[in-house]
Structure formats: structure tokens, C-alpha cells
């Protein structure tokens, strides 16, 4: 087998893994969009905020310590304890549920039946607020996140591929775990949406407010629930990205990568978010691998957006999105 092809396979595998991470962020978008018609620009920042909170809780950081120290002239930074990862994740989840409630109670409850663009603007505001709030609360330095997920080269895959091709693939353990967790998450979400009472109520609210009310569904409850779910997905995405590249504010920019993923997969499809993520992940890695050299490299920065642009022209509803048909 030619060397180029074998390397290409490795690139492909790594692209799949990267795609999973994109898909994780896109998933949060899809959830909220499906249930409330809100395009949540703040999903990326929510992932950042979740990761910041998680690190803060684990490290026993005092929230708002900079603010407190600057105001009272004190020098406190840490409580001096460490919280185990699992407990910290649960606490972070509680924080995200609280955030969901606040967001619904103070913002979106008052914007029911508004134009989508107004809702979108509100989420942009939320994104900036949350970014600043996260900064004040936990500080802006880059933090290391380690919840105990294994990292580094997977030696089994390295060995197996070495025996097969005479060349060992470099696949990161963390990426494997991310894939595994993402699969679990998606199965869980699909089962929840399809077969549970609240999942059904969620789809009902997404479809028709009046009808949902008439069968006894509380819109506010469902909205808080959906934002909480998006918060949960944000935690998972935050953990993965945070472990990979440290918890830093550029994390919120991954939300931008989720946009082409959504355009490919369709804004309303959970499987679409996954497949879209994988296509973007594999596409940009393979493109860089094959054409990167000719074009001077760094094609990963723009490839996804160009692909999305092509999709917008030829298939605006995405691969899995609902076709927009106006009955005349």
C-alpha cells in the first residue's frame, strides 16, 4: 500500500475524532433550536462557562475572588480544598440548570412570539454577558482541566496498525473517549426525545405552542429543561475541549466552527449535527493533507466555511434538515 494512502487513513481517523468534538457543540445548538426556535449563539460560551465553573469547583477557587480582593483589599483565591471530578461535574450541572432557569426567567420568557432575529440578538447579548461574567467569576487565566480522562497515544491502535501497515497510527486516547461519550450522549438524547414524557412534551412545544398548552404542557418548564439539556451538552463539550487545549477564552470561538457543521447537517436534526461534524472534521483534515501543501497550508481555518457556503447555495436545508415547502 502506498505510504500516502496509509497516512491519509490516519488523517481520516483523526478527522473523525475532531469531527466528534465539533458535533458536540453543534448538538447543543440543535437542541435549543428544535425546541424553541432560538438560534443560541451563546452555546460556545456556555461550553466555556461550564468548563470554567468545573475547573473552579474542582480547584476550590473562590468565585469573584478578584472582585472581592479588589474591593476589600483581601488576598483570598482558594478555599483550600479539592473537589473530586464527579462531584464537581454534578455541581457544575446544578449551576447550568440554575443558569437555564435564569436565562428563561429573565430573557426568553419575555420574548415569546418575537421575531427569530430578536431572539438571536438576545443570545448574542447573552454570549457576551456570559463571557464577561465567567471572567469576573473565575478569572481569565488559562487553566488546566483534568477530570481523569486518559490522554496520549493509544498504544493498541498504534500496535495493530503497525502490524498491518508497518506504520503506527497516532490516535489520541482522549479523542477515543470523546467519541465514545458523544455516541452515548446522542443515543441518550434521541431515546429521551422519542420515548419519554418530557421528550415528547419537548417536541410538542417545538411544534405548536397552543396545542402543547392544551394537552397540559407548561412551556416555561420545557424551556428551562431544554436550556438545561443544552447546558449539559455544553459541560460535555467543555470537558472535552478543555482537557484537549486547556480552559481558555478562545474556547468560545469553537461555536463558530459549529455553524458550518449545522449548515451541513441541518439545524433541526440531532443525527445531522453528528454527521455534519464528522464531514467537517474529516473534510478539513483530508483537504489540508492533500491540498494544504499547494496552497501554503492553514486551510483548516477556512475549509469548513467554504463547504458550508457551497451547501447554502445547493442545499440550504442541510443534509438532514426539514425541507422548507410553502404550500400555495
Amino acid at each position, binding site marked *: 500500500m502506498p505510504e500516502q494512502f496509509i497516512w491519509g487513513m490516519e488523517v481520516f481517523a483523526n478527522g473523525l475524532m475532531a469531527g466528534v468534538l465539533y458535533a458536540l457543540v453543534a448538538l447543543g445548538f440543535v437542541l435549543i433550536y428544535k425546541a424553541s426556535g432560538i438560534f443560541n449563539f451563546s452555546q460556545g460560551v456556555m461550553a466555556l462557562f461550564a468548563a470554567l465553573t468545573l475547573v473552579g469547583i474542582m480547584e476550590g477557587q473562590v468565585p469573584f475572588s478578584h472582585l472581592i480582593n479588589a474591593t476589600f483589599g483581601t488576598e483570598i483565591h482558594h478555599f483550600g480544598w479539592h473537589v473530586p471530578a464527579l462531584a464537581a461535574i454534578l455541581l457544575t450541572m446544578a449551576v447550568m440548570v440554575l443558569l437555564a432557569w435564569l436565562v428563561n426567567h429573565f430573557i426568553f420568557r419575555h420574548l415569546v412570539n418575537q421575531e427569530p432575529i430578536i431572539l438571536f440578538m438576545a443570545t448574542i447579548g447573552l454570549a457576551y454577558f456570559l463571557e464577561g461574567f465567567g471572567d469576573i467569576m473565575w478569572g481569565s487565566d488559562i487553566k488546566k482541566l483534568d477530570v481523569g480522562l486518559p490522554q496520549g497515544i493509544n498504544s493498541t491502535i498504534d500496535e495493530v496498525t503497525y502490524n498491518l501497515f508497518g506504520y503506527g497510527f497516532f490516535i489520541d486516547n482522549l479523542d477515543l473517549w470523546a467519541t465514545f461519550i458523544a455516541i452515548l450522549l446522542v443515543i441518550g438524547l434521541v431515546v429521551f426525545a422519542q420515548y*419519554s*414524557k418530557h421528550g*415528547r412534551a419537548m417536541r410538542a412545544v*417545538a*411544534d405548536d405552542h*397552543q396545542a402543547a398548552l392544551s*394537552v397540559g404542557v*407548561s*412551556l416555561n418548564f420545557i424551556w428551562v429543561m431544554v436550556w438545561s439539556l443544552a447546558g449539559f451538552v455544553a459541560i460535555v463539550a467543555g470537558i472535552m475541549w478543555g482537557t484537549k487545549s486547556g480552559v481558555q477564552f478562545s474556547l468560545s470561538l469553537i461555536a463558530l466552527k459549529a455553524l458550518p457543521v449545522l449548515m451541513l447537517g441541518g439545524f433541526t436534526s440531532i443525527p445531522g449535527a453528528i454527521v455534519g461534524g464528522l464531514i467537517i472534521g474529516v473534510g478539513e483534515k483530508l483537504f489540508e493533507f492533500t491540498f494544504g501543501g499547494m496552497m501554503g497550508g492553514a486551510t483548516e481555518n477556512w475549509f469548513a466555511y467554504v463547504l458550508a457556503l457551497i451547501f447554502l447555495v445547493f442545499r440550504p436545508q442541510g443534509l438532514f434538515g*426539514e425541507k422548507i415547502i410553502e404550500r400555495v
Partner: protein
Amino acid sequence: MLDASEGFTTEDGRKIGGVVMEMKHITLRFGGVVAIQDISFDIRQGEVRAIIGPNGAGKSSMLNVISGFYNPQQGEVWYKGALRPPMKPYQVARQGIARTFQNIALFEGMSVLDNVMTGRIRQMNAGLLAQAIWKGKAEREEVENREVVEKVIDFLEIQHIRKTPVGRLPYGLKKRVELARALAAEPSILLLDEPMAGMNVEEKEDMSRFILDVNDEFGTTIALIEHDMGVVMDLSDRVVVMDYGKKIGDGTPDEVRNNQAVIDAYLGVAHD
């Protein structure tokens, strides 16, 4: 009026019980427009109660008051012997008042089965966490609810479209699915907002039959709004007639038919 003791038997042998819902001096305004003006009437257990009137009479507003979509400025709603405080529509639904809509409000993207299953939401009690891990109580509940739903689907003869997304169905069937969803809730009162609107004769006959069968078989109390006088007179036990937000008649179909005010409202009257 609120003693549940009284009741009577209709000519065709159905038992009509005591008062289950009573509206007292309801007034509903939208800004300066008075949609409903000081209207009182009651609904008895097991009867088919119709609200009729010309366009803009305030019939749908009245139904929306009963189902909690509108809260009246004045007046009281008594339900099962208790004064009902102002409520959100979903709270009213959970109390056992199910409804359909004039211009059909279904979950278009969901299958017929899923649509009807949403009608059972009020009967499902398993908590969020129990459902998340999907076992025990949640599973038993799902099975029980499925049985009720399948019964309703059989009853309304929509088995053949159970898996079809509702958005693809023709109008008449959509109306029937909406009825199925409301019925799946096993409501104490079933509110039907123009169940026959926009249907052809055959569909109207089907729908009439279903309404009568539902009332007969399950003893469901039904309050309905309808334009078609003929249909109303055949279906209902008692009729409220509204015109320009006021009540102009109330009684059995025969009484109403011979009421001069009603005749005037429907046929018009020469003003001199």
C-alpha cells in the same frame, strides 16, 4: 344551582348528571371590545352541550375562557363544585379539560401515534430522572398509556395512519386526530371548537357519529361550538345561543329552535 344531586335521563336513555361546570356572569373584554358580556350557563355531567351563534358572537372566546386561554375580567368559573382561580391553559388541561381548535393545532412533525400520546401527558407521573434512566415506573406507565391510546385510535378508526406524520394527512383526518388526542386525556369535559368546520357532508356525518359515540361509550361530557345548525340540533342535549357577546337563548334544541330572539339573530330581522 351547584348541587350535583339532580339529574335526568334523556329520551335515548343516557344519564345526565349534576352540574360539572358553571360559568357565572362572565365578561371578557379586549380593550374596548366586549367579546362576552355577562354570560352565565352550566354544563352537566354526561351531556352534549352546544354553544351556537352567528359569526363574531363570542363562541370561541367562551371556549377559550373555559380552557384557560383567556381569563375573563369579570365572573366566576366553577368546576366540580369549586371556584376556579385564574389559571394557565396547561393547568386547566391538567385538571381534565381537553380541547380541540377551530383551525387545528396538531404537532405536524410528529406521527399520529405520538400526537395522540401527548394527550396522555397529564396522566404520566414518573419524574424526569426516572424517565432518563427508563425503567420501572416510567416503563409501566408508558405501557398503560399506550393501551389507552390504542383504544382511542381504534375507536376513531385511524389505525391505518398511526405511523404517518400528521402534516401529510388531509384536513378531515387531522380533525379526527385532534379529537383522538383530546380523548386520550380521558377528560372530564371535552371542548370541541367547530369540529365540523370546513368538512364535506360525508366527513361531517362521520364526525357527528364519532361525537355521539364518544359521549355514549365513555360518557364523556362534551361542550361544542358549531356553525351548522342542523348538526347542532341533532347532536346536543342543550344549547346556548350567543349573539354579539350576549346570551340570547338557552335550552333544549326544540326550545331554542322556537325562540324568537334566536330566529331573529340567525335569519335577521327588519329594523324599523
